[in-house]
């Protein structure tokens, strides 16, 4: 296929965007099912366009960097600085677009069943399409500003979709929380862009341009840019301590959680760091170490938080945070292809797990309503294995994938990250590796706990006429497709020297980064490392299985009491939410009041009204000069003339 086709890559975001506008305007007049099908077809067509783009990109031969900009136009031109509204296809963006469009299409199909009967059905699909369009703008952007456009677009859609059921106060609040928390990160993103523009050796936001000039950037500047961008990435990708919005974001409909808050939007931060990977290579090691440490802290912290959660989706939310922590760890140790690989596999198995949990919630809905308990509370589930065989089977696959059992997808990617961390060498790297392993064992534990609580044991919701049942086909088919990919997607990057297609394909996009060398897993050391990861996962599963097999069938969670003092910390997510609330409501409010009533009222308003008052008072004084005595005016004029004369003569004399 001809690479020239890539000039039309703007069509990929354009199609869902136009569909979204159409559905927003006319969605109410359509039958709900028609709106759903239109939206799904739009997504499906972007997936087809992806496939075409992929082969077109592959057809670019030779040593040159595979990169193709689309048609576009100059967005703004200020002096020498200009920004194009243009898209760009390269290996990194094509990989992102691939799983985004594929998972999004499946989730659209799933939503047709899941959202059935919702009064704002077409609106939901319009938002989903708008989200997909924004996400594609984000990853296909030719420069940082276009990426930022998409970045804000997905933020908006995230807000709209989290608070989609805005009649629930908790959902409305969660939407606002997500939006506001992300603003904190966006400040970092914006500052980084400003810094790039004012840096003489860069001076342009275009990725290609930045990559060309990379060697001329001072290390300190590069470090500052990377760390500021990382703040942005922390917001979007829910890294500690800007992660607080993601667990609350589970208030949104489950397909939203799967698509936006597990598979795609939260990977935007990872994508941004990878786009800027050449800069990480130029920056001082402090930058990458910071990223790795924040990543591993997030991975461990979120894994601990996931231990004690009872909400089926919250477990997965913390798990998402934890897995994203792993990817940032990978970026920090320079395993860029490991990071994107984990993002891809995670997108598949986490979307699968979320959709599986959505299927469970869907079936628990009626019984929860009847018995007055929360349909998402795992303490009231149990024994769903026989009632929902397809959901069960696919969930098990997702579980094995996230835990990292050979040969499921998560095994390959997680092992690559941990292995690369170990192979980096040095005390810090070994420490990171150890903490990563601890997070991995906890992952195995909490995921096994979830599986056992939901699918095994007795049904704890009691006797009911509304027995949970398997979900409709539109929901189970995406589950089956995703589970197939959760098994095989890991095979795209088997870490052997002979089979490094994925890394090689990706290489040009992250070229120029000094520490971008990817560890290979040939030889005994690689096998041992992989074995360690596997053993760790199995240990976690075994412990959780033993503990939960004998657990009482009431609503308490006896076995967890074993973790002792960690339990309240885990349940309350280390009190970070309440800590932030206290900080904002106490000193934060005081600071805001001081800013509003002292700084703004007295200093800023004072300056402007003082200026006005000064002008007014000087006017009152000066107008007295106009006395009406003509002879006095003559005097003024003569004095003035003489003064000017003297000045002129004096000036000449000088």
């Amino acid at each position, binding site marked *: 296929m001809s690479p020239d086709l890539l000039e039309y890559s703007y069509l990929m975001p354009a199609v869902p965007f136009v569909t979204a506008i159409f559905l927003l305007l006319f969605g109410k007049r359509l039958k709900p099912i028609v709106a759903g099908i239109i939206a799904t077809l739009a997504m499906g067509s972007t997936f087809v366009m992806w496939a075409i783009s992929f082969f077109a990109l592959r057809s670019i031969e030779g040593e040159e960097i595979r990169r193709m900009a689309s048609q576009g136009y100059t967005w703004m031109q200020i002096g020498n600085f200009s920004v194009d509204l243009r898209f760009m296809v390269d290996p990194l963006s094509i990989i992102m677009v691939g799983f985004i469009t594929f998972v999004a299409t499946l989730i659209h199909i799933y939503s047709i069943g899941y959202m059935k009967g919702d009064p704002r059905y077409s609106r939901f699909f319009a938002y989903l399409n708008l989200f997909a369009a924004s996400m594609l703008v984000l990853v296909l952007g030719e420069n940082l500003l276009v990426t930022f456009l998409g970045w804000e677009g997905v933020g908006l859609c995230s807000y709209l979709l989290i608070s989609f059921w805005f009649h629930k106060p908790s959902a409305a609040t969660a939407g606002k929380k997500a939006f506001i928390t992300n603003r904190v990160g966006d400040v970092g993103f914006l500052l980084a862009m400003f810094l790039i523009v004012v840096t003489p050796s860069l001076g342009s936001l275009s990725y290609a341009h930045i990559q060309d000039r990379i060697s001329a950037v001072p290390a300190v500047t590069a470090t500052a840019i990377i760390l500021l961008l990382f703040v942005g990435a922390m917001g979007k990708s829910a890294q500690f301590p800007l992660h607080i919005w993601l667990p609350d974001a589970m208030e949104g409909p489950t397909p939203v959680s799967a698509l936006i808050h597990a598979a795609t939007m939260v990977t935007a931060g990872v994508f941004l760091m990878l786009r800027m990977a050449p800069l990480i290579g130029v920056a001082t090691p402090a930058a990458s170490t910071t990223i790795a440490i924040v990543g591993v802290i997030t991975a461990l912290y979120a894994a601990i938080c996931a231990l004690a959660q009872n909400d089926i989706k919250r477990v997965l939310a913390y798990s998402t945070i934890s897995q994203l922590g792993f990817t940032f760890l990978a970026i920090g140790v320079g395993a860029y292809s490991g990071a994107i690989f984990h993002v891809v596999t995670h997108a598949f198995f986490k979307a699968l797990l979320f959709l599986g949990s959505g299927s469970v919630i869907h079936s628990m809905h009626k019984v929860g309503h009847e018995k007055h308990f929360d349909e998402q509370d795992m303490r009231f589930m149990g024994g769903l294995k026989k009632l929902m065989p397809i959901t069960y089977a696919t969930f098990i696959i997702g579980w094995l994938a996230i835990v990292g059992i050979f040969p499921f997808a998560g095994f390959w990617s997680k092992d690559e990250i941990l292995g690369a961390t170990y192979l980096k060498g040095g005390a810090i790297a070994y420490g990171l590796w150890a903490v990563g392993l601890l997070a991995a064992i906890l992952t195995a534990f909490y995921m096994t706990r979830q599986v056992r609580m939901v699918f095994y044991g007795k049904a704890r919701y009691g006797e009911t006429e509304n027995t949970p049942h398997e979900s409709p086909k539109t929901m189970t088919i995406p589950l089956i497709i995703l589970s197939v990919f959760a098994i095989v997607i890991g095979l795209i990057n088997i870490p052997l020297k002979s089979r490094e297609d994925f890394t090689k394909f990706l290489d040009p996009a992250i070229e120029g980064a000094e520490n971008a060398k990817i560890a290979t897993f040939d030889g005994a050391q690689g096998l041992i490392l992989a074995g360690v990861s596997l053993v760790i996962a199995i240990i976690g599963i075994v412990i959780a299985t033993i503990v939960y097999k004998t657990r009482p069938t009431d609503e308490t969670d006896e076995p967890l009491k074993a973790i002792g003092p960690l339990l309240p910390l885990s349940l309350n997510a280390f009190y970070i939410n309440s800590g932030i609330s206290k900080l904002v409501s106490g000193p934060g409010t005081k600071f805001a009041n001081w800013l509003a009533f002292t700084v703004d009222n007295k200093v800023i308003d004072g300056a402007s009204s003082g200026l006005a008052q000064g002008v*007014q008072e000087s*006017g*009152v004084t000066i*107008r*007295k000069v*106009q*006395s*009406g*005595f*003509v*002879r006095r005016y*003559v*005097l003024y004029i*003569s004095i003035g003339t003489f003064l000017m004369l003297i000045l002129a003569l004096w000036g000449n004399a000088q």
Partner: protein
Amino acid sequence: MTITTTHYLVLAAIIFCIGLAGVSIRKNALVMFMSVELMLNAASLTFVAYSKALDDVAGQVSVFFILVVAAGEVAVGLALMVAIFKRKHKTSPDEISNMAEAHRDKSVEGKSAGVANVS
């Protein structure tokens, strides 16, 4: 004794000062007008003197302009003064200063200050 350019200039300066003093001191508008004419003539004399000294005709052209402008000024000024005299029966400009700030009464001033505060 030959009459040099300096003599003309000194004469012009004296005339100018007489005119300036007249405008500053006299109260009658008509006399003030005449004093202004004196000042203009002093300027014209300077122009002519320099025109002769520097052998440049431009100075003399300027004098024509001054004469024309002065004539126009007198025509307008006298017409104004006649009109004012007809209404007020006064010739001193000091007494017809009702457009000046100092002659406003206090209430008007307060009002204008109030308006300014609002804006």
